[in-house]
Every structure is written in C-alpha cells, then in structure tokens.
C-alpha cells in the first residue's frame, strides 16, 4: 500500500508529467507565467482543485450513473474553482484582477478532468487524493520554472525584486505571448532531449 502510494505520487512528477509529457493544461501554462508571483497563486489554486476534485469524485464514483458522469465531474470542479475565485477576490484582489479569466478557466484545464477520468474513476479516495496532489505538483513546478526565466529575462526581476540592476536591457518579448510559446518549447526540448539520451 505504502509503495503504491509513493509510486502514485512520483509518476506524475516525471514520466507522466501532465505538462511536458501529456501536453495538458497548456493555456494557463502560457498565460500566467509572465510573473512569478501570479504563477505561484495560480498553481496553488490548481493544486487545491485537482486534489479535492479527484478526492470528491473518487468517493462518489460508485453512486454516479455513467451517463451523467461528465456533468457531475464538471460540477465538482466548478465548485472548487468558485471557492478559489472567491477566496482570491477577498484576500488578494490585485492578483485576482491580473489573473482575470484564467482562474475560472481552471474548470476547463484538462489536467483536472483528465486525472478524474483516468485515475479517480477507478481508484479509492486515498490514492486519488495523492494522484490529484501529485498531478497538481507536477504541473506547478514546470510553471514555476518557466515563470522564473520569463520574469528574469523579460523584466530583470524575480518576485518583483531587481536582480540584474541598471545595465540589464529587458527582453520585452519574454513577457509577451511569443515568449511564452518559445519558452515552453525550449523547456519541452530540454526535457525530452535529456530523456532521449
């Protein structure tokens, strides 16, 4: 049991990583990574949602009729996303404003529903909780790495603190949309290239 739990936790971090292996949840990976601070808030929201959605769905998995399964999944996810949205709006209104629609878009983040379908639908609640958490963490660290480089190169800062000082010329492209695409492509390239060796 314990080894199975460990395995469930480790797989989504590397071999089955939702972002760079399964290419899921790309929208927010690109959209929120222009500043490290926003990214951290966003990934915490996603971890919260994947963990609790998988857990809740796993508890209910035997009583939900197959025909309306997708609908129930969506409603469970939407419930947790609304909690995240309200909490952010109340405690961090500035970041909430910057994230804009992307908080609501956690609902259509394929990672959440993907894990419910692929794992929580056929596994007990405890393991599903671990799987949801691990998928969230697997998503989170990729975003944090990307955000780190985008903010560093694009604004010369980390978490709003100046790193390079005066002489640095900002690579404005890095905080604009094309930079997001290039950065994620480079990340995938580096990871896959390493695996191929």
């Amino acid at each position: 049991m314990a080894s199975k739990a460990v395995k469930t936790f480790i797989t989504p971090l590397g071999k089955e990583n939702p972002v760079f292996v399964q290419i899921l949840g790309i929208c927010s990976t690109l959209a929120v990574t222009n500043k490290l601070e926003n990214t951290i808030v966003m990934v915490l929201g996603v971890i919260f949602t994947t963990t609790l959605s998988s857990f809740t769905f796993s508890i209910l998995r035997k009583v939900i009729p197959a025909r309306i399964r997708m609908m129930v999944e969506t409603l469970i996810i939407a419930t947790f996303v609304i909690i995240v949205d309200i909490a952010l709006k109340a405690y961090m209104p500035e970041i909430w404003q910057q994230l804009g629609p992307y908080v609501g878009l956690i609902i259509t983040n394929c990672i959440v529903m993907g894990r419910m379908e692929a794992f929580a639908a056929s596994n007990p609640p405890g393991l599903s909780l671990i799987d949801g958490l691990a998928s969230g963490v697997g998503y989170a660290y990729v975003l944090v790495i990307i955000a780190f480089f985008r903010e560093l190169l694009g604004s010369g800062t980390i978490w709003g603190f100046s790193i390079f000082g005066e002489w640095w010329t900002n690579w404005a492209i890095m905080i604009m949309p094309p930079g997001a695409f290039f950065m994620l492509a480079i990340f995938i390239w580096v990871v896959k290239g390493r695996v191929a060796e």
Partner: protein
Amino acid sequence: MNGELLPAAVFFGAIFTGNILLSNYLGMCSFLSVSKEIKTSTGLGAAVIFVMAVTSLLNWIVYHYLLIPLNLEYLRFIVFIVVIAAFVQLVEMIIERVSEGLYAALGIFLPLITVNCAILGVSLFMVIRDYSLVNSFFFGLGSGIGWFLAIIAMAGIRKKISGAKIPAGLEGPGITLIIAGMMALAFMGFSGMINIT
C-alpha cells in the same frame, strides 16, 4: 469605456489584435492535437466559430437577466459551463437528425468543444470587459474566426514541414509551439491598430 467601442472594432480586434489563441493562449489543447490536417482543422474551426458566437450571446443574456438581478454573479462559472454543454448537446442532436453530411463533418468535433477553454474564456472575457449584447456577439464571432484562421495556418505549416528533419526532442508539440510563437510574433504586427482590452 468599452461601451463606446463599435461592434466592428470589437470584431476585427478579436480576430487580429487580441487573437484568442495567439495572445490569450486559449484553446491550446485542441489547437496542438488537432492541427495535423487541414481538413479536420477546418471542421473543428467551423464548429468553434458557430458555438462561440452563439454561446457568448446566450451567456450574456443569462448573466445580465438572470444572475445579476438575483445577485448570483459568483455562480457564473457553473452556469456558463452548463449553458455551453447544454447548447453543444442540443446542436449535436439537431444536426444528427437534420443533416447526415453536416453531422459527419462536424459531429465528432462537438463533444471536444465543450472542454475547449476558448469557449468559456470568451464568455468570461465578455463579463470582465463589460461588453454590450451586440459587442458580445461580435466578440464571440470574431474570436471564433481568429481561432479558425490560426488553426488553419498552423495545419498548413505543419503539412509543409512534415518531411523536414527536426532535432530530436523537438518533434510534435515542441516544434508546434515554436511555430505558434512565430505566428504570435506576426500577429503582434497588428497590435496598435485597435485596442479592445
């Protein structure tokens, strides 16, 4: 201030300057996985235009005549996704009865669309930017056309490079993201024409 925008400005702005895919990163999942062939891309793109235009209209009506009077704005995520899912299901049933050919062409794409984050994203943007009814419709239509253009262009480019030798680790999603980045660069040339945010 958005009340003063002309519908035509919102329409062209949504296609070019604020392209839903290339500057807001929405609809990436299906963009990356479906853009292998021009024919399927056309089918999915057409379905997206239709669903996006109609659901932005429906969601505007629901939001302004149902949720605001009842003070239930915080439920918008759940309501929007249910409206979208119900509409897609309805359209699927109708075209299955009415037109065999159309069903063969579009039918398989419709279920995919419910989870396309661009559709929900358009509805959320419309609320955040406080568009009027007419502007919301043109925003949905324009965003759909913008998405259609992007996926067709991508499918064409991917067909052209199918015989090219791509560095290991960059095949598939990697190279697609780099192309998307270049397309985003090209579309940035339109920025400054109209500002719809």
